[in-house]
């Protein structure tokens, strides 16, 4: 009996450090954010109870709604484009042809580059003398300012799409390779056209992969900090101010008000928790 209990205890020992660290790094900070959000504090001073003051301030500021809207636009446009490009590339590279192996490896390159490296690559593209304007002039068009108020959102989305689509490609390709060929053969015997095979075999079989990949990527895109910080920094003014950048701005740049930043993260937390719930359910645990 005693040895059984000792055995059970020693099993726990393996996992305890990880559980403790996850609680320290994730759970405690979330709880601390909740606590801090009901306080206010001058720099160097102790936090004082402030009730709902921070929340009232955020609810009444147009900045809050603007950042949520920006994040929605940024995430939706990015995820949609990445899902389409990824699907196109996966369908293409699932066929057999000369050079497929090389293309498969090469396609992963944008994803293998760190976010901050991709951001730097795009500094050279978005510069007034850079790649994209040279291409526009080659086509006889006028160069444009990629980072002005009207174009900045498009520019940060394009950067995110370029960096992120190979993740979809890899997921879809793994899913496509897992579809048994008998299914296609059976559909062929039934006289299905290529389009019908795609609609009634490929898409239904790929659906769980598509959902998992899209949910994971939506979480990451909604939390993207590096790319936007390094290209527009949330600007000009508030054109690309998404939730992560706004949190950083409130806490360290403009207001330097940590309790307000904490309240802001708590206010947006339900959006992320809902998505996390669906993601975890989809990941099948």
């Amino acid at each position: 009996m005693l040895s059984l209990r000792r055995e059970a205890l020693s099993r726990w020992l393996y996992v305890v450090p990880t559980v403790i660290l996850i609680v320290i790094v994730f759970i405690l900070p979330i709880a601390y954010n909740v606590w801090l959000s009901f306080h206010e504090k001058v720099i160097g001073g102790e936090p004082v109870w402030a009730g709902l003051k921070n929340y009232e301030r955020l609810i009444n500021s147009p900045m809050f709604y603007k950042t949520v809207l920006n994040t929605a636009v940024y995430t939706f446009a990015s995820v949609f484009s990445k899902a389409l490009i990824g699907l196109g590339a996966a369908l293409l590279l699932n066929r057999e042809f000369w050079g497929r192996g090389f293309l498969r490896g090469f396609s992963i390159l944008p994803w293998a580059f760190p976010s901050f490296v991709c951001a730097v690559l795009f500094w050279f593209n978005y510069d007034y003398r850079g790649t994209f304007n040279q291409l526009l002039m080659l086509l006889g068009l006028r160069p444009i300012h990629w980072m002005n108020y009207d174009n900045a959102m498009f520019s940060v989305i394009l950067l995110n799409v370029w960096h992120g689509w190979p993740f979809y490609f890899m997921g879809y390709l793994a899913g496509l390779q897992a579809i048994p060929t008998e299914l296609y053969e059976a559909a062929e015997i039934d006289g299905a056209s290529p389009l019908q095979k795609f609609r009634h075999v490929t898409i239904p079989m790929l659906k769980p992969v598509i959902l998992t990949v899209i949910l994971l990527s939506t979480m990451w895109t909604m939390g993207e900090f590096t790319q936007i910080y390094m290209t527009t920094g949330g600007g000009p003014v508030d054109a690309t101010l998404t939730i992560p950048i706004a949190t950083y701005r409130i806490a360290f740049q403009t207001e330097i008000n940590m309790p307000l930043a904490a309240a802001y993260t708590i206010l947006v937390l339900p959006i992320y928790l809902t998505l996390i719930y669906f993601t975890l359910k989809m990941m099948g645990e």
Partner: protein
Amino acid sequence: MLIAVGSALLLLWIIIPSFWAFKTSISPHEDAWKPLPSRITLDHYLSLFNPSLEAILRGMGLRAALPDPMIVYIRNSLVVSTTASVIGVILGSLAGYNLARFNYRGKRVVIWLVLFAYVFPVFILMVPILIIMRNLGLYNTLLGVALAHLAYTLPYSTLMMRSYFMGIPPSLEEAALVDGCTRLQALWRVTIPVAVPGFVTAFIFSFTLSWNDLLFALILLSSTRNYTLPIAATFFLWGGEIVDPGGLAATAIFAGVLPAALYMVVQRYVVVGLVRGAVKA
């Protein structure tokens, strides 16, 4: 025909946005904004590792925005990423082994906790982590940043190693136990040698995750000598102008090729591991 057009579009889509930085990294300074360089030079790369070469550039006013030699930032990034991934892989392997092998009450809760940590957006933690690190006396230290990076490396390694250990048949260990080994000996002599590829994969991915991070480095470091590569890259942009295009391009390519090369070695494990449940269903 369709395949040829598709492949060409795919190649252009990948090459065009990365071309200018590659080209600039091997062009002389005066050709930075020309589509093709007049001659090829490796000076920009050499100057990343050679402070005396860099001092000449500094004298030309090119790298004036950078407070320290690049090699300092490269070293800091290497130190942080290695520390974060070694700790993450060791603890993650223990937890992953536990989650793969044993059944006990509360195991589901642990798995959910790890998955939750894996997908949770870290920016929500920026204020509390800063305050925790200040209280631990680890503010403005590389160790503090490395520990904060456990937020990336630990959940990832745990999940990765769990699925790796699940692929190693338990009968291997049981045979060793029958032969009179203790559980620890069985683990040390039988399971760990078999799991080496898993450790390598988990280490490489953890390394790239930590290498990519800008957020924690930005909030936890205050003196320039401790900055990491992503922060150093932001110094090249001064009032919306790229000060030293060649140096910046070389920095980016170096900082990208290192993790990309590592990544290519093990890429097939990643996504397959992530979408494993979905692929099986």
